[in-house]
């Protein structure tokens, strides 16, 4: 299911970038969020997490910050196959 999550993250990143008039480069599992690969800042990343919570019904960070650097690491924190709301 991580493939689906990757696609969802890429779709929402593209939307956030488009809102700023930026074009998103190709996004893969190894793409780093804030390392300079993507035209986004930490507010954009914060926005992405809110949107992902709305779309998946899951908040992997409820208990606190979990370290992630790449798109693949974030995707792995969500379980798309789980029923919405159950963790």
């Amino acid at each position, binding site marked *: 299911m991580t493939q689906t999550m990757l696609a969802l993250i890429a779709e929402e990143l593209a939307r956030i970038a488009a809102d700023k008039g930026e074009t998103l480069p190709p996004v893969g599992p190894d793409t*780093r*969020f*804030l*390392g*300079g690969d993507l035209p986004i*800042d*930490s*507010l954009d*990343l*914060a*926005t992405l*997490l*809110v*949107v992902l919570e*709305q779309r998946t019904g899951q*908040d992997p*960070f*409820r*208990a*606190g*910050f*979990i*370290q*992630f*650097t790449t798109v693949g690491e974030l995707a792995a924190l969500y379980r798309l196959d789980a029923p919405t709301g159950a963790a």
Partner: protein
Amino acid sequence: MSAVPPPWIDPGVRLIEADTHLGWPDIAAAADALEATFRRESGMATVGIATVEGDRASTVAAALIAAERANVPLFLKRHGPNPGAPVAEDATPAMPGFAVLLETSGTTGAPKRARHGFDRLRGRLRGAPDPDARWLLTFEPASFAGLQVILTALASGGTLVSVPGGGAAELAQAALRHAVTHVSATPSFWRAFLMALGNAGPPLASVTLGGEAVDQPLLDRLAARFPGAKLRHIYASTEAGALFAVTDGRAGFPASWLETGVDGVALRLCDGVLEVRSPRAMTGYAGPGGGAPDADGWLSTGDVVEVRGDRALFAGRLDGRVNVGGVKVSPEAVEQRLLGVPDVQDALVRAAANPITGHILTATVVPAPGVTEADVRAAVREAIADLPPAARPRVITLADHIPLGSAGKKTREGAA
């Protein structure tokens, strides 16, 4: 040229700005040029205020030296989101003599200008020489916190690394390239910085957090990531400046300090709100924020504190403001602005807890009858365009009504 540095600068200091390296002779030359300008300008006005763009640490350092020598107030302009926006004067009348005027980070409405005595700006700094220290400047140079870092580095005779206009990614690259040892930043910056560093890490000896409440998972991560570093978080209030530092690696502060005080500062709770009495704060009362102490010198911080066991933990602001990436924003004020949009029938702005920026604002909007989704979104976007990025609701959801809580009020609190 006057090559003798003021007592608060060690001439061994080095500034690295992106790829430019500057030493004391460079700073002194810039200060001489600015001093001549300041003297010429102040001769033409009743109370001349010297103004410079405070977007570089080197400019700020040179301007401080020049303004002190010319004995004029120095206004450090800030590169905010609205460079052309008018700046409201604070209530303090313009006074002659050396002082530093800073733009406060306005959350809604025009930014304000606040006056700081130079002694107060330097009040908490320890002047120990430390030529091997390599500081990273993560704050805007013309902010209160940025000045603390610049002044500390200037006094230490060490190195100050900065990237004008750079974000977490650029600062992480600079931190690695120049092997910085001291970093002071907001918790939000630290989260982004850790992400940008990936698996690499500079040789940090000192990790400082301030500007917003610190959560335990972040402290734990930093302690694990930089085991050799001294880890501390600073508590400060707008009116009283920096008040105390917590060094035990735990969020909040020891509840016993509410009885004993700490570092000369007395603390108490009044209806759950932290009040402080500090000898250092006495000169700061004329400053920004409008806070005033009572007859016994106690000043309310507006920060709500909960005692759990042996720990006092911060639980938000009394006025409902929340911290978004180090910027205090008011959901209510933003909501009022949305309610003033003709295409909007009703609106609710909430602060959602966020692992990256602490909080983030979201809005639920009810369009006026007959208004299309595209039109109401465009109207809302226009209405918030001049707010600082942190104060703009980042996710806007349309609804046909705003749900009310049991008390008949909008339930503003987001999931904690």
